[in-house]
């Protein structure tokens, strides 16, 4: 468990944030300049805060009231920086073993080969950082942090400096990270798809304040938080189970909200596996009658649960589909024409091609935070 209560002034910026998370992957989520990086820098010991109380599993690492400040090299808090920060004068192997070397032998996890394999960096060991691609650099940086046997791993936008292809290359490694190492992670990001795929708990930040903390599915389904996160990518995160693969059309069928959802083929997943689905609000249409003669494959039944605040011509709607929330983004005009109001039964129409690699996770954990008994491939 991580407990954070921080008050710090940086120039004219005022950081006043507190959160408690039991989550295994806690996402600090918010727009650029919301104070996320400052907060992880304080947790990692790179900034000395004015006032703070920070504890990891009950072990106090900062308590300004009682003049406790554990220096960064004794915190055993791993840090994966946005730019990797590999040592240019050392080989990949020496980089990986840097923190390992400073860890007392008794505390080492004894897992160099496992971590190399987990991150797929075995073939890079004798190279120098300058010859690595951005994605390889980040994987080595993650390995280096893990080999120092941290109690907590901080990741500050580790994918932000990478292009889409490199992001897609690393995301699967990040998804497996907690499940295979059991090191809790605090993940800083302003990307909805990343957070939707990786986080078990989300801490939403804006202007140096925490506006909400909770399980991923709950936070992503809240209409009032959309303005603080990302208008374009907003959407519900749901837990689904793979029913079968449709080889003929290259599709996968998921069980979700008491209905079925066709998505592009999920490679390497067997039926029965739980996956996480991020359905962007802008990819969802609403119909008051069961639509027919429609190209969209996915039609789910539900009722209107909440109408969000107006935002120009746009309005977000939360639907309750068999106990799970789906967000839909409509024009105000449509809402009025359809006469949508709380409790009204409707059909949600979701285009299959609206899903891409960004919105379909292979996460083996549920969006509501509980572990699943899914079978990893």
């Amino acid at each position: 468990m991580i407990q954070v209560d921080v008050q710090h002034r940086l120039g004219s910026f005022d950081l006043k944030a507190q959160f408690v998370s039991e989550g295994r992957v806690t996402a600090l989520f918010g727009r650029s300049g919301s104070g996320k990086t400052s907060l992880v820098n304080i947790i990692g010991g790179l900034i000395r805060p004015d006032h703070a109380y920070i504890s990891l599993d009950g072990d106090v690492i900062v308590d300004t009231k009682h003049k406790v400040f554990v220096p960064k090299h004794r915190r055993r808090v791993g840090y994966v920086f946005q730019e990797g920060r590999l040592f240019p004068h050392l080989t990949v192997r020496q980089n990986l073993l840097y923190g390992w070397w400073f860890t007392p032998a008794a505390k080492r996890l004894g897992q160099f080969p496992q971590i190399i394999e987990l991150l797929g960096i075995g073939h890079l060991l004798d190279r120098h950082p300058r010859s690595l691609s951005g994605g390889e650099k980040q994987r080595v940086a993650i390995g280096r942090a893990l080999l120092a046997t941290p109690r907590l791993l901080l990741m500050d936008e580790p994918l932000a400096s990478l292009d889409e292809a490199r992001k897609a290359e690393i995301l699967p490694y990040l998804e497996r990270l907690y499940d295979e190492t059991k090191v809790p992670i605090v993940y800083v990001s302003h990307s909805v798809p990343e957070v939707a795929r990786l986080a078990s708990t989300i801490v939403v930040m804006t202007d140096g304040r925490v506006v909400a903390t909770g399980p991923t599915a709950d936070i992503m389904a809240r209409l009032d938080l959309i303005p603080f996160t990302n208008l374009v990518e907003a959407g519900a995160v749901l837990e689904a189970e793979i029913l079968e693969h449709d080889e003929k059309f290259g599709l996968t069928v998921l069980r979700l909200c008491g209905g079925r959802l066709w998505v592009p083929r999920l490679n390497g997943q067997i039926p029965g596996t739980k996956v996480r689905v991020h359905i962007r609000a802008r990819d969802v249409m609403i119909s008051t009658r069961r639509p027919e003669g429609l190209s969209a494959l996915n039609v789910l039944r539900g009722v209107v649960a909440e109408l969000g605040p107006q935002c120009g011509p746009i309005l977000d709607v939360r639907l309750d589909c068999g106990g799970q929330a789906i967000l839909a983004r409509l024009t105000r005009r449509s809402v009025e024409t359809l006469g949508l109001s709380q409790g009204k039964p409707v059909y949600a129409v979701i285009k299959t091609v609206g899903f891409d690699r960004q919105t379909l996770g292979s996460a083996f954990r549920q969006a509501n935070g509980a572990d699943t008994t899914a079978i990893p491939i």
Partner: protein
Amino acid sequence: MFTLTPEEQAAVELSIRVSLWATVTSLPPGLVVAMLLSRGKFWGKSILNGIVFLPLVLPPVVTGYILLLLFGRRGPLGAFLADNFGIVFAFRWTGAALACAVMGFPLLVRALQLSIDAIDRGLEDAAGTLGANSVWIFVTVTLPLILPGIIAGTILSFARAMGEFGATITFVSNIPGETQTLPSAIYTFTQVPGGDVAAFRLTAIAIVVSMSALLTSEAIGYLVGRRLGVEG
């Protein structure tokens, strides 16, 4: 033509010995001062900066005279060191080394300071989060990263020492075999009739030694740069 007289040979050997000592002994304090000037925030920083760079702008004769006042047999520091540690600078080759070290110090510190300023502090932070305390960070990250600066500074300081004349001759005079370095010897030969050939020989040697130092520094700098992946 190219056989050296014992006197000339002594001057060459002395110059190399003096320059090596001056360079090697000024490196540790040079690192400390460069770190202070680059990273430190303290009262009197600009005064320290001024003292370090003063020999660069003062006439060398003035620097030599100040050294004579401070480190001469009756000077406050000279008397203290002689009485307590038996270290004597005045009119000894050690004094020549001190004069060369002081004259080369600003060049050394400047080169070190530039390379320390150029370090990505983020790498040091990263080392800290991996469990290294500040001493280990300095040894395993800072020092290797400023290696090109150390090499450049050392060579500059060595070259400056090889050429140092004014401060040396003022501080420790021009005693053959003890304080007569290459430049002093050349100067002496140009002052006596028929000394031209000897002066020319020593000049050729000075060029060869200085040129080798520069080429060596280029070569080492290239190798280190390639290892760090920072060269063009």
